[in-house]
C-alpha cells in the first residue's frame, strides 16, 4: 500500500491541505449534531478527509471532479463555498443549488465540481465526459471520478474503465475504500485483491494508497495527474480510510461494524492528527502546532458562521418549483 515518507510540498501547500481537512472535519462533525434538524439524508465524510484534500490539492482550479452521495468533503476540497453548501443542506433558495439539490446533489461547475450523485457510481461517467471535453479541446484539464468501494462494482463504473482506456481519457478513478457499502463489508463485495489489480485487468495502471496519509494521497494523485496531462490516459487509485460515522445520519446503529470503534479510529487513524505528527517529527515541512490550532479554530468558526447564516429565517417560493427544468 502506497504510503509516503517524503514530499516536496511547501509549507504553504501543507497549510492549505491541513486547512481543507480541518474545514471538512468541522463541517461534518457539526452536521453530526445538526442532522436531526435538517431535511434529507446526510452521509458524513469524517475520517476520509485526507482523500478529498490530497486529491484536490493535486488539481488545478479548473480541473474537474465528480462526487458521490458522501460528497461534502469533495466539494469543500474543490473550493465550494461552505456557507452556500450549508444553506443548501437547509433547503434554502440561497443554497449552492438554490435548494433544488440538497446534500446528495451539491454541485458547482464554476469550481469544477460536477456534483454529488444520488446513484452509486453515477458520477463516474460524468467525470469521463469532462475529461472528454478536455481531450477534445486540448485544454490539458484532468478530471477525477470519485466512487466508493461499493459503487466501484456498478456497471457504469466498470464500463467507464473500458471507455477511458479506449479513448485514453485524462481521468483519474479515485476509489474510496472505506471498508463498507452501507452495512456490507468491502471484503464481501470487493472481489479480487484490490482496485489496482482490477485496473490492470482493464489495462489501466493503478495503486493502493493509505487514505489517512494525505501526503501519500497527494503524491499518488500528482503522478496520475502528470500521466493524464501527458496524454497517457487514465489511472485507478484505491484509497483506504474508514469513515468515523455511520453510513448515514439517523439511519444506522453500526451494529454491522463490530470491530470499528469510532473512538479508536479517531485516535489511531485520524488524518489530521497523522499530518500533525508528521510535521512534528519533521518528515513534512509544516507550520507550528499553534498555527494548526488556529486553523482548526478558524475552521470551526467558519462552519459556525455558515450554520448561523443558514439558520436565518427564509421563505421559499413554491412557484420556483418549475424553474430550471429546461433552459427555456
Amino acid at each position, binding site marked *: 500500500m502506497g504510503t509516503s515518507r517524503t514530499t516536496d510540498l511547501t509549507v504553504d501547500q501543507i497549510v492549505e491541505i491541513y486547512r481543507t481537512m480541518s474545514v471538512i472535519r468541522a463541517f461534518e462533525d457539526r452536521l453530526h449534531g445538526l442532522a436531526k434538524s435538517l*431535511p*434529507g*439524508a446526510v452521509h458524513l465524510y469524517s475520517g476520509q478527509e485526507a482523500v478529498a484534500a490530497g486529491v484536490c490539492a493535486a488539481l488545478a482550479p479548473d480541473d474537474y471532479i465528480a462526487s458521490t452521495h458522501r460528497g461534502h468533503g469533495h466539494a469543500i476540497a474543490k473550493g465550494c463555498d461552505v456557507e452556500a453548501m450549508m444553506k*443548501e443542506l437547509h*433547503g*434554502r*433558495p440561497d443554497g449552492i*443549488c438554490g*435548494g*433544488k*439539490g*440538497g*446534500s*446528495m*446533489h451539491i454541485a458547482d461547475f464554476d469550481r469544477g465540481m460536477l456534483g454529488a*450523485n*444520488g*446513484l*452509486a*457510481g*453515477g458520477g463516474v461517467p460524468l467525470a469521463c465526459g469532462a475529461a472528454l471535453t478536455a481531450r477534445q479541446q486540448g485544454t490539458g484539464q484532468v478530471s477525477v471520478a470519485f466512487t466508493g468501494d*461499493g*459503487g466501484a*462494482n*456498478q*456497471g*457504469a463504473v466498470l464500463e467507464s474503465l473500458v471507455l477511458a482506456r479506449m479513448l485514453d481519457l485524462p481521468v483519474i478513478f479515485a476509489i474510496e475504500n472505506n471498508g463498507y*457499502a*452501507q*452495512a*456490507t463489508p468491502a471484503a*464481501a*463485495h470487493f*472481489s479480487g485483491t484490490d482496485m489496482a489489480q482490477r485496473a490492470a485487468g482493464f489495462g489501466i495502471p493503478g495503486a493502493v494508497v493509505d487514505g489517512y496519509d494525505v501526503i501519500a494521497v497527494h503524491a499518488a494523485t500528482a503522478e496520475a495527474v502528470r500521466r493524464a496531462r501527458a496524454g497517457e490516459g487514465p489511472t485507478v487509485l484505491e484509497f483506504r480510510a474508514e469513515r468515523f460515522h455511520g453510513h448515514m445520519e439517523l*439511519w444506522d446503529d453500526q*451494529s*454491522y461494524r463490530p470491530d470499528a470503534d469510532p473512538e479508536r479510529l479517531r485516535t489511531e487513524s485520524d488524518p489530521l492528527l497523522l499530518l500533525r505528527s508528521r510535521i512534528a517529527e519533521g518528515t513534512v515541512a509544516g507550520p507550528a502546532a499553534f498555527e494548526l490550532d488556529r486553523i482548526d479554530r478558524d475552521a470551526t468558526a467558519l462552519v459556525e458562521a455558515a450554520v448561523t447564516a443558514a439558520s436565518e429565517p427564509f*421563505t*421559499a417560493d*413554491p412557484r*420556483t*418549483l*418549475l424553474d430550471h*427544468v429546461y433552459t427555456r
Partner: protein
Amino acid sequence: MRTITYQQAIGEALAQQMRFDRSVVLMGEDSTNAWGPTKGLHLEFPDRVLDMPITEAAFVGAAVGAAATGLRPVVDLLFIDFATVAFDQIANQAAKLRYMAGGRISVPLVLRAMWGTGLRRGAQHSQALHPLFVHLPGLKVVAPSNPYDAKGLMAQALVDDDPVLFLEHKMLYFMPGGVPEEPYAIPFGSAKVVRPGTDCTVVAIGRMVSVALAAAEQLAAEGVQIEVIDPRTLSPLDTSTIYGSVERTGRLVVVDEAHPRCSLATDIAAQVAQDRFAALRGPVRMVTGPHAPVPFSPELEDAFAPGPDQVAEAVRATGLVKDAAVRSR
C-alpha cells in the same frame, strides 16, 4: 383485528409465504441488515435472504434467470429511482422473456421498490416512475395504499407467475391499519371503492388515496359527495369498477403524484374519455405532480405533490359545482 403497520404487513406476507414455499428467496443490498419490511427475515431464513453487491443490472438479471428456472426471487431495489440501472433487465428481459419464448416459460419475480415524494431526498430518490412500468407489456404493477392491501397484494405477488413490480410508498411505511394474521391474497385487477359517493369519481393511488379522502371531507361540507377509488393494481387496471362509477357520477378526477405526461392520470382519463364518453357530464380532470424533477427543498417538495385543495378544486372544475348548484335549486 390487530393493528400493524404497512411495512409490517408486507413483511408478514413475505414471512408467511416463505414458510410455505421454499423457492421464495430475497435478494438485495444489505438484505441481512434490512430496516424495512424484510427486517429480521434473515434470522428465520438464513439461506434464503441473500446480500447483493451494488450491481443491480446483474442481480435483477440474475433474478430473472432464477425465476425462469425454478426460484421465486423477491428483489429489493430500494428506491424505484434505482430501477434505472437495471432497466434493461426489467424492460427487455423480465417483461419479454415469456413472450419471446412463445409462452413456454414464465418469470415469477417480485421487484420491490420504495416510491414517491415526502422524504426530502431530492430528485434521484423521490420519483414515482410507475407510468414507465405500466407502459411495458409483460409487467404487472402494484401500489398498495394501506396495510391491509399491502399484505394481500404481496401475498398475491408471491404466487403470481408473472413479473410483478411491487411499489411501496415510502411515506406509508409507518401507517397503521387492521390486518388479519392469517394469510389472504387480493387478486390483481380489482379496485377498491374507498369511499362511496354520487357526484364525482376520484381515482387515486398510494399516498394520494388519503389526499383524496381529505378532499372528500372538504367537499362533503359543500354538499358534494365524491366516490374515491383505489385501483390497487395499476397493471392490470380494473377499468370496470372505474367505468361503473363514472356511469353513476358522470365525472372523473384522477389524482397521482407522478409527472403529468404519458402518465397513469392520462391513462385512466383517456380510457374513460374513449370508453365512457357518453357518461361524462363534464371534463375529466387530472391532478398530478408537475413536469419537473422533485426538488430537495421541503417547501418545494410539498408543493410538488398534489394536496386536498387541488383535488377539491379539480372536482369542482369538472363542472360539478354548477350541477350541484342546479340540483340544489
